């Protein structure tokens, strides 16, 4: 396709397709601003992206090779009097570090009679500590799979064929098929592996925004079905809803009553005892006569805070959790089908629907600043085109060295595992589990772990995708590998046991986006900086940031007002179309059954209480 030329004038130019940038894009387009949204990368969502298995391997390779050197072109010929340049850099320079890949799956398909001795073959190939050589392998394997894919296009059903020779060979023998590395590659596109691991609180600001703006129409969600916590070397289910509390077998009758009383009083938001205003939440919990069990649940799994968190903050977190309970199911959390990487894309689509122009693999080389006014008048894109704009919104990574001068970099440690079974097997194979691991036992900082099953469309059937996140102390591997060895079966695991086997794992560190930004550091007043993902479980930080930026750009406009209907015009076959656009919008709203009427839907949900009508069937 011939590269079309971009228009040379926009209201808002946005560089980077992370969550906050994408929300700003949608909000601006929605109220009629002309938006140009660019990303230097070939994929959407920056460090919020999710990848197929094969695409993740490519991403890893790119990160390890480091960025391509860029020639510093001289754009001064494009400058007018009284203008100067601010050069931008490559966002991938240092946001991802310490990548380590460990693959435990056997290279070839193999049939294993039982689970007992599976590890032997994997053991022998594991010695490759140098990630470099493994990378080559995976790259080769990837090529192979690409070939396989090419030939597959001729066959009807690329998925179902050769992968299960076992089915025909021995139907009588109860064999468990060990998933090979080749299979992971072959089924690679069934994976959607997120770089960040977060959840949506059912009453958090992201869910509210999705509903309010109607962007929610572009995606669907799964409920997190259970909350687990790691304690004394075991996993326990945390009872959080009324139903859970009563059904719990771990709690005594007395504990149940205490817990219910505490939760009820907590939600009522009674005045906090002033005596605790300077005391940690853990002390407050201690004094509620709850017992050790309940204190652990409340502190680590419900409030998800540390021992030192002040009482006020602890109570607020507890309330936030409780309020989100029951809106969509048995836990307060939702997870988007196909992964978190969908969310920024959904906001981008909303922006595009309202006229936003999208280019990937297309960046901004520098900003043109009016020296007197200290405002960014225009940008020069990576193809040397001068594009004028009234506002410029940018992912902080593009500001490169500017951001790291003053603020020490804080990091998140991440581990991503593909495993062959759940950490806590149950009747259903399709559980989505949120696991809290308090600091101390096996790790230095509190670890949040999310285990996704295949129905979330993030991993192939027969596997689970496990995300671990914590504030880093050392490298991701140092922070998390011990925990992985303990909770899962790897060749390093000391004791055998029925734990899930790790087929493949990735460790890396990511810059923590909660570090105060570079705002105001000599940047023009109409340049707005978005930070990358931070370590919290929710999305409050980015959504708040996007709203603030929007208000600075357009102080008099509403932030993501209820769209009449996101797709504007929905013509149904049966009815003739009204000619006036306004009318058709209205009509479409009515035709969409009650879909458009959010308030009503909201109330219905509300009345559901914690009975979860949605999931009961």
């Amino acid at each position, binding site marked *: 396709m011939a590269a079309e030329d971009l228009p040379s004038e926009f209201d808002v130019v946005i560089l980077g397709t992370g969550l906050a940038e994408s929300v700003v894009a949608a909000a601006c387009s929605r109220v009629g601003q002309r938006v140009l949204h660019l990303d230097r990368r070939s994929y*959407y969502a920056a460090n919020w992206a999710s990848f197929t298995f094969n695409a993740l391997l490519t991403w890893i390779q790119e990160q390890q090779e480091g960025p391509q050197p860029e020639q510093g072109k001289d754009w001064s010929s494009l400058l007018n009097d009284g203008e100067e340049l601010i050069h931008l850099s490559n966002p991938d320079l240092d946001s991802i570090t310490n990548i380590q890949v460990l693959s435990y799956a056997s290279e070839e398909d193999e049939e294993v009679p039982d689970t007992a001795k599976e590890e032997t073959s994997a053991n022998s190939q594991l010695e490759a500590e140098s990630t470099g050589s493994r990378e080559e392998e995976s790259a080769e394997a990837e090529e192979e799979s690409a070939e396989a894919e090419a030939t597959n296009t001729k066959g009807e059903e690329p998925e179902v064929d050769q992968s299960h020779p076992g089915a025909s060979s021995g139907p009588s023998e109860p064999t468990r098929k060990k998933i090979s590395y080749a299979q992971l590659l072959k089924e690679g*596109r069934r994976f959607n592996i997120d770089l960040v691991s977060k959840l949506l609180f059912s009453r958090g600001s992201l869910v509210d925004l999705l509903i309010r703006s109607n962007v929610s129409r572009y995606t669907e969600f*799964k409920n997190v079905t259970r909350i687990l916590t790691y304690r004394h070397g075991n996993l326990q289910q945390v009872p959080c809803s009324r139903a859970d509390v009563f059904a719990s077998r771990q709690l005594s009758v007395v504990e149940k009553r205490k817990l219910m009383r505490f939760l009820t009083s907590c939600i009522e938001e009674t005045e906090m005892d002033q005596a605790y205003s300077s005391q940690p939440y853990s002390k407050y919990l201690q004094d509620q006569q709850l017992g050790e069990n309940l204190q652990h649940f409340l502190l680590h799994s419900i409030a998800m805070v540390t021992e030192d968190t002040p009482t006020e903050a602890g109570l607020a977190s507890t309330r936030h959790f409780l309020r989100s309970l029951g809106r*969509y199911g048995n836990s307060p959390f939702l997870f988007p089908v196909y992964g978190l990487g969908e969310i920024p894309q959904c906001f981008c689509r909303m922006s595009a629907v309202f006229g936003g122009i999208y280019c990937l693999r297309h960046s901004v080389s520098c900003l043109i600043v009016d020296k007197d006014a200290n405002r960014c008048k225009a940008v020069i894109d990576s193809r040397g085109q001068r594009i004028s704009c009234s506002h410029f919104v940018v992912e902080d990574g593009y500001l490169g060295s500017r951001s790291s001068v003053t603020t020490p970099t804080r990091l998140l440690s991440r581990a991503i595992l593909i495993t062959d079974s759940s950490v806590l097997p149950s009747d259903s194979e399709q559980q989505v589990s949120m696991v809290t691991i308090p600091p101390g036992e096996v790790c230095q900082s509190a670890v949040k772990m999310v285990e996704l099953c295949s129905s979330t469309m993030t991993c192939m059937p027969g596997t689970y995708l496990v995300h671990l996140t914590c504030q880093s102390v050392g490298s991701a591997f140092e922070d998390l590998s011990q925990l992985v060895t303990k909770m899962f079966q790897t060749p390093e695991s000391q004791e055998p046991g029925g734990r899930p086997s790790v087929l493949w794992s990735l460790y890396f560190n990511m810059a923590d986006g909660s570090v105060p930004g570079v705002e105001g550091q000599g940047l023009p007043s109409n340049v707005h900086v978005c930070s990358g993902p931070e370590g919290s479980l929710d999305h409050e930080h980015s959504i708040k940031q996007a709203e603030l930026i929007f208000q600075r750009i357009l102080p008099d406009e509403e932030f993501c007002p209820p769209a009449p209907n996101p797709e504007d015009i929905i013509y149904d*076959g049966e009815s003739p179309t009204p000619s006036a656009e306004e009318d058709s919008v209205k009509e479409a709203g009515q035709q969409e059954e009650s*879909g458009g009427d959010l308030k009503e839907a909201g109330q219905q949900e509300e009345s559901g209480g914690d009975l979860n009508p949605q999931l009961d069937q």
Partner: protein
Amino acid sequence: MALRELKVCLLGDTGVGKTSIVWRFVEDSFDPNINPTIGASFMTKTVQYQNELHKFLIWDTAGQERFRALAPMYYRGSAAAVIVYDITKEDSFQTLKNWVKELRQHGPPNIVVAIAGNKCDLSDAREVSEKDAKDYAESIHAIFVETSAKNAININEVFTEISKRIPVVDAAGGSSAKSIKLGRQVSESRKTCC
């Protein structure tokens, strides 16, 4: 009669007539001056096929294909994709092959692919032979028709062919399909059962 909602996504170069095809199918009208797709990026039409009603939820690209920046979320859950090229533009047929590749990478595994050679009313200016296109479509097991949104040729046929190729309701698939739609009523999202 059972109602099935089928998401269909449109692919193809800017200006090949994606939106016109949908307009013809849904509205039975044609507007030569249709704007590059802004606003109207979603339309539906319900068609009877055998003893089922097929409600096509047709997603338009919202212009994101213009600079090759279509998001993978666009393909999610699509039962079918209609890939359109312009028979008077060889280029548009070449990029069609890229769309097929893109779909293999990001689209659902069992997606039904239909290739529509649009503007067949302009056969004087033809640059892509019907045979070449047909051979290519066969090689990838895709539906193939030459269409004219302007003269209403073969537009309904594209969708009838899609209906034929959509697998009969998969008994097993239902179990894992319980997803939550935000802001909608619960009953709606489960329409496809029974």
